């Protein structure tokens, strides 16, 4: 065979394998950090998304097509994300998934809105699994954006409702990262604590730079001097791990009310320092999962290891709703699918969930969990990455109890 024949043969084979596949797949771009400081978090999200897609494909996919995940590294940068969004649109991708960083999500929403206005046949639907800035489902709401995580106000609502009944709390300290999300947490905490417990004093309202502090001892000293008995913090990653470590070293007695104590890397870093001290508000608590959701958890552990926890349950809900909407609309056309997703209800792992039509915010149950040592076989599932710690579910708020009014005036095409 000469070279020309070979080239032609390879070309034909490529064409044969690529073209039909490209037509018959629903491509979903995952635009999140896969390198750099936040790579671990981005990678965890990708694992969960891929697993959720596999589950759906195993049952035959949607409308005879398979879900294909296209990972795209945005390095946690809004600019980079827009480049990736453009490239996704050029590849004929109509669905994108992103979650890390409200700064990124905000840029993506704007870009998706513009893109869909200019090129309706290249329209894109944005499935947001973790960016929790409340604005996205209020003033900045978009028909093309769907949020599957509870926004930071909803989480604060649950946290403060839980704190309301704890009469031991009399002084609260707010410690947050100095960026969009940290500011939102601090603002919501100030408002809601004042409304629910006017007797509680806010003795500190501190912002520190994101992911720059190595030793939180000085902050802990300050908290100690303030006499706070509870700390509310939206900190995540090392900012939370180091804070709790420093608190343990200095024998700080306060409790921590957190958003992200359960995410990848944090439970092992908390260790004994976090036991009975760290509380978390989440939509996920594996030990509370309904019987129907257990195979999902087990399957995930089988694939990614016994200590892996599919805490980003939003991925599963998002893809389930997406495929149901496609089935209902009998089409994978973004505008029709988005329309079908509005107001959709389904049974989640912890009870009914609803994609509220008014603002595209998923209304779902929330848990308040406390980090504990799992002893005596009381708990089946452990916190992510650990073999002997877990989150004890201390309170559960059903969907309607977590819902908040929205200021969204949805513009539908």
């Amino acid at each position, binding site marked *: 065979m000469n070279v020309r024949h070979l080239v032609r043969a390879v070309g034909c084979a490529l064409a044969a394998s690529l073209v039909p596949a490209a037509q018959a797949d629903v491509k979903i771009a995952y635009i999140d950090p896969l390198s750099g*400081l936040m*790579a*671990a978090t981005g*990678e965890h999200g990708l694992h969960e998304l891929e697993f959720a897609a596999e589950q759906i494909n195993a049952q035959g996919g949607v409308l005879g097509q398979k879900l294909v995940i296209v990972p795209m590294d945005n390095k946690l940068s809004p600019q980079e994300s827009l480049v990736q969004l453009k490239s996704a649109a050029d590849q004929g991708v109509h669905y994108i998934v992103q979650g890390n960083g409200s700064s990124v999500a905000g840029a993506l929403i704007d870009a998706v809105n513009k893109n869909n206005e200019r090129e309706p046949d290249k329209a894109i639907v944005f499935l947001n699994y973790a960016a929790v800035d409340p604005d996205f489902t209020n003033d900045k709401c978009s028909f093309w954006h769907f949020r599957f995580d509870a926004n930071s106000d909803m989480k604060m609502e649950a946290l403060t409702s839980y704190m309301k009944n704890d009469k031991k709390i009399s002084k609260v300290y707010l410690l947050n990262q*100095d960026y969009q999300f940290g500011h939102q947490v601090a603002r919501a905490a100030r408002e809601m604590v004042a409304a629910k417990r006017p007797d509680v004093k806010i003795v500190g309202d*501190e*912002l*520190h*730079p994101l*992911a*720059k*502090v*190595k*030793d939180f*001892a*000085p*902050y802990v*000293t*300050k908290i*100690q*001097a303030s006499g706070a008995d509870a700390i509310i913090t939206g900190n995540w990653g*090392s900012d939370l*791990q*180091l804070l709790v*470590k420093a608190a343990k*070293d*200095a*024998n*700080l007695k306060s409790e921590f009310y957190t958003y992200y104590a359960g995410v*990848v*890397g944090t439970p*092992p*870093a908390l*260790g004994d320092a976090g036991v009975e001290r760290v509380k978390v508000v989440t939509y996920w608590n594996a030990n509370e999962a309904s019987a129907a959701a257990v195979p999902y958890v087990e399957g995930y552990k089988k694939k990614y290891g016994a200590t892996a926890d599919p805490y980003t349950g939003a991925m599963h809900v998002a893809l389930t709703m997406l495929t149901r909407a496609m089935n209902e609309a009998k089409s994978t056309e973004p505008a029709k699918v988005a329309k079908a997703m509005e107001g959709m209800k389904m049974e989640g792992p912890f009870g009914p969930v609803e994609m509220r039509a008014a603002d595209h915010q998923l209304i779902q149950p929330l848990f308040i969990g406390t980090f504990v040592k799992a002893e005596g076989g009381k708990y089946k599932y452990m916190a992510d*990455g650990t073999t002997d710690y877990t989150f004890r579910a201390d309170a559960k708020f059903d969907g309607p109890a977590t819902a908040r009014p929205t200021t969204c005036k949805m513009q539908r095409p």
Partner: protein
Amino acid sequence: MQLVVTSLLNGVTYGLLLFMLSSGLTLIFSMMGVLNFAHASFYMLGAYFGYAISTKLGFWPALALSPLIVGSIGAAVERYGLRRAHATGHVSELLFTFGIAFMVEEAVRVVWGKQPVPYKIPDVLDGPLFTLYSSTFPTYKVFMMAVSLSMLGALYLALTRTRVGLVIRAALTRPDMVEALGHDVPRVFMLVFGGGSALAALAGVIGGNAFVTDPSMAASLGPIVFVVVVVGGLGSLTGAFVASLFIGIVQTFAVAVDYSVRDLGNAVGFNASAFPTVARITLSQLAPVLPYFIMVAMLVVRPRGLLGTRES
């Protein structure tokens, strides 16, 4: 009072750790003129080796072995890489160490994963040592101080009481002259580079479990060591020591201060509510960037640093 005493102790601990990191860098920087971007990577390697060895042999062997291993790696990097790059000038050196820093980070990621490793403080050193007012001071921090101080003592003795130290000190200020006198300056460079890496690794072994051991630890601590070297002054270990303590203490105290420009304005009688939003930022918010501010100010006002002996 509690705030002052505890902050002071915290500041000194942090400062001493910084010194352990920057002493090696100061020596390398002033002798070879190499801005070693990979220095913090050796700190990270020290922490990871410390973790790996401590899970097999325990913490104490790790404390000794990890710096030795990393020191040898450092010496090898100098001998077989940097020395060649040295011949083609400062830019290639800079790029070389820059590349090493990335390679180390990626290697650590491949070997140990992207997530923090559970590097724990040994049980003997865990827990509080003494109580200060209502708060406790951890044993481990005192241990960190003790290690830094004994290292400082050992370094001082080695530099002032040994023949090698004599040559190193001479090479710090007059490398050309030392070479002219027949000393093997490249070998001294290798020794210093290896030694500096070992010191960074020692800091890593005791800092890795005090903070978090993950692949981003080098990137997050890297810039601050340069601040120490610049503020302390080229070629001056004493300068690096003073600068480390100074930066450690300033940063710790700044956190405790909640005053902003606006408050200051109010205090001196202005109607400061008219100040722009930026005036509302408090000193504690600025604490982590304060060292860089100090560095910039130092470069403008006194380019050779606090106790520097050379201009460049």
